[in-house]
């Protein structure tokens, strides 16, 4: 039937559309290629770091040399040559900037394309953006307003210089230096990232947001984020990620550490849209990320929300250590894998304190030839009386060549624990699609609508300003998935 053929052509034409695939022509300063002790020293020196920081990095690097890349995840990729990459890249320009006017206009243009509202509009949206371009923060806004209530929101390189006691007290206490291969690598060479401290009893007056962007070619990005919510405080933080389109794979190995003290709450949202590679699986970001939150105080709460649509490979398990009595951990996840993308993602909820609760809602969508794995651990330790967990893992398949896999681990050493696990796998039915088309929706629009419906419980968790963007992203990332 010709109409079907027409639709196929239209869909095919829409397939190759990575909106963020542009490269900004800007002079960059890079560390020499490769990874050795000198690279670590170079990065540290570029940041004017104190000696203790360099020592910390060098110890991590030494440890890393003896570590092996993990192979337990359900992802396949060519061996990464760690010597064939740059570990530091920064836009070349004068170091200190007083206002946005001084920022290279090309950079601002990039942000504009990314849709980051880096101007007065931000005040209206109530968003403060600490923009990280490659390895250096170029513009931080709304610092003053945050200063008024004592919230520290700055590049981590700055925090290392300005708040060394705080950084030393918390850095590496949630994700130890030796935690895993990628976290250890990050500890040795991390270039920048974000530091947040919310003082006792303060409710952070705005959403904090960081856009990370990999621009330089053959560059690994290793950002490091540390967020501390002091007693009774609250903060909501959102990160968004995009990267330009390139044929080679780029490594991204970030570490995020969250610490919630007594009665504090941290809400951490991610919209990850790194370049996923083309429809033949060429190029794309290798995303190996360690994110962990420590509910250190009683009645503290950490909530992770992630929308993972990009990257050729996603290896990521944002987790909660529920140490404080009555603490709460949440994980809301949407993972979309299209074409040849591979996602292995999930969470770990470690119940240590009494009356701890955790909730896991995972929505995995697979299309094309992609594979999507939910991997999760719910662990209740001996003293965690009355621990409760609810897990729901739903998978949606689009087409016949993709796969969905669910690997839940449950360990309980306390008989009072209540653990529930629900899982479903479904397909977008032909009749659902036809119904939408008959009512006038285009193929792509119909898929986006159905998938957004499937993800609704998770999308609802996102801060309002970003929920709309995330919904659009869900549609864009599935373009070309039905034909």
């Amino acid at each position, binding site marked *: *039937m010709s109409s079907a053929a027409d639709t196929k052509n239209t869909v095919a034409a829409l397939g190759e559309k990575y909106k963020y695939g542009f490269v900004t022509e800007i002079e960059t300063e890079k560390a020499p290629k490769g990874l050795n002790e000198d690279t670590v020293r170079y990065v540290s020196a570029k940041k004017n770091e104190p000696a203790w920081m360099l020592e910390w990095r060098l110890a991590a690097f030494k440890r890393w040399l003896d570590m092996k890349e993990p192979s337990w995840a359900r992802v396949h990729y060519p061996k990464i040559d760690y010597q064939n990459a740059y570990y530091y890249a920064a836009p070349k320009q004068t170091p200190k900037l007083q206002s946005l006017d001084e920022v290279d206009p090309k950079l601002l243009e990039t942000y504009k394309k990314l849709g980051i509202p880096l101007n007065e509009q931000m005040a209206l949206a109530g968003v403060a953006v600490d923009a990280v371009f490659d390895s250096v923060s170029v513009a931080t806004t709304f610092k003053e307003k945050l200063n008024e209530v004592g919230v520290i929101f700055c590049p981590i390189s700055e925090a290392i210089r300005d708040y060394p006691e705080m950084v030393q007290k918390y850095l590496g206490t949630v994700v130890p230096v030796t935690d895993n291969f990628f976290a250890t690598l990050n500890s040795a060479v991390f270039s920048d990232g974000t530091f947040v401290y919310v003082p006792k009893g303060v409710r952070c007056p705005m959403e904090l947001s960081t856009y990370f962007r990999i621009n330089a070619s053959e560059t690994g990005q290793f950002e490091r984020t540390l967020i501390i919510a002091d007693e009774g405080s609250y903060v909501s933080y959102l990160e968004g990620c995009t990267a330009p389109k390139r044929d080679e794979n780029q490594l991204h190995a970030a570490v995020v550490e969250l610490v919630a003290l007594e009665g504090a709450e941290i809400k951490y949202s991610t919209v990850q849209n790194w370049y996923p590679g083309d429809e033949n699986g060429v190029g794309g970001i290798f995303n190996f990320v360690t994110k962990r939150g420590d509910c250190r105080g009683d009645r503290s709460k950490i909530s992770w929300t992630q929308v993972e649509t990009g990257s050729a490979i996603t290896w990521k398990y944002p987790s909660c250590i529920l140490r404080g009595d009555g603490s709460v951990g949440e994980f809301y996840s949407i993972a979309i894998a299209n074409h040849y993308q591979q996602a292995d993602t999930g969470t770990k909820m470690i119940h240590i304190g009494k009356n701890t609760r955790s909730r896991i809602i995972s929505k995995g969508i697979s299309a094309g030839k992609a594979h999507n794995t939910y991997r999760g651990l719910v662990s209740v330790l001996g003293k965690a009386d009355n621990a409760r967990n609810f897990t729901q893992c739903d998978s949606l398949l689009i087409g016949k060549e993709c796969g969905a896999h669910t690997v839940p681990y449950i360990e309980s050493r306390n008989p009072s624990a209540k653990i529930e696990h629900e899982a479903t796998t479904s397909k977008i039915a032909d009749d659902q699609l*036809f119904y939408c088309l008959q009512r*006038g929706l285009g193929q792509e629009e119909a898929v986006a609508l159905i998938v957004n419906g499937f993800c609704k419980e998770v999308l609802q968790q996102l801060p309002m300003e970003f929920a709309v963007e995330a919904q659009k992203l869900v549609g864009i990332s599935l373009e070309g998935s039905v034909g």
Partner: protein
Amino acid sequence: MLEIKNLHVKVGDKEILKGLNLSLAAGQVHAIMGPNGSGKSTLSYVLAGRAGYDITQGTITYNGEDLGALAPEARAAKGVFLAMQYPVEIPGVTTMMFLKSALNAQRRARGEKELDAIGVLKIVRQKAATLNVSEEMLKRALNVGFSGGEKKRLEILQMKLFEPKLAILDETDSGLDIDALKLVAEGVNSLRDPSRAMLVITHYQRLLDYIVPDRIHVLAKGKIVAEGGKELAKELEAKGYDQIIKDAA
């Protein structure tokens, strides 16, 4: 408005429609009646452009255009509406959200201005009132947990909302009690218009007591085997399909 000539349609390897002819003018309401397996639903799907229903011979001309060449969503934008026998459920998508997306998709395709949420809500509320569709229903996920009657009422609401030129109602009476049937029929009758054509597909004569057709076509084994005025429905009721088909042969 609609001119079907020698239509042959295959689903998979099986030929379901085998040389169907039908002519429907604007302002007219025609009924298609036929036994199970005669090809009634296939006809409605092929008119709406469902994938897998392949025209192997013949033509469907709609307002002078080759309907078979248009994608299903393009047909919708040009005024083809199919009220389905089994409206599907779409979890997580509120009915209101769906109505807004669909209406705006059609408007966009026609080069008309899209309506904002409030604009759509206003129109929907006004159309919903007569169909006993509640606000609460509009907030629920599309067709999820709806009763048979609610689903059919929502189909008619969409028909009123989209204001199609050619409305096809596929077994809209199935699964309805008499009160719901009357409500649905009233909705359909209120849409009778000199510029609109309707094709009412049904197995039973009962619906035609409430939606009185200008003409009735009897479909059997993929072809129209008998035609007549509204009295044909009564004859069918009395004699049964077998006899009518035999008489026609």
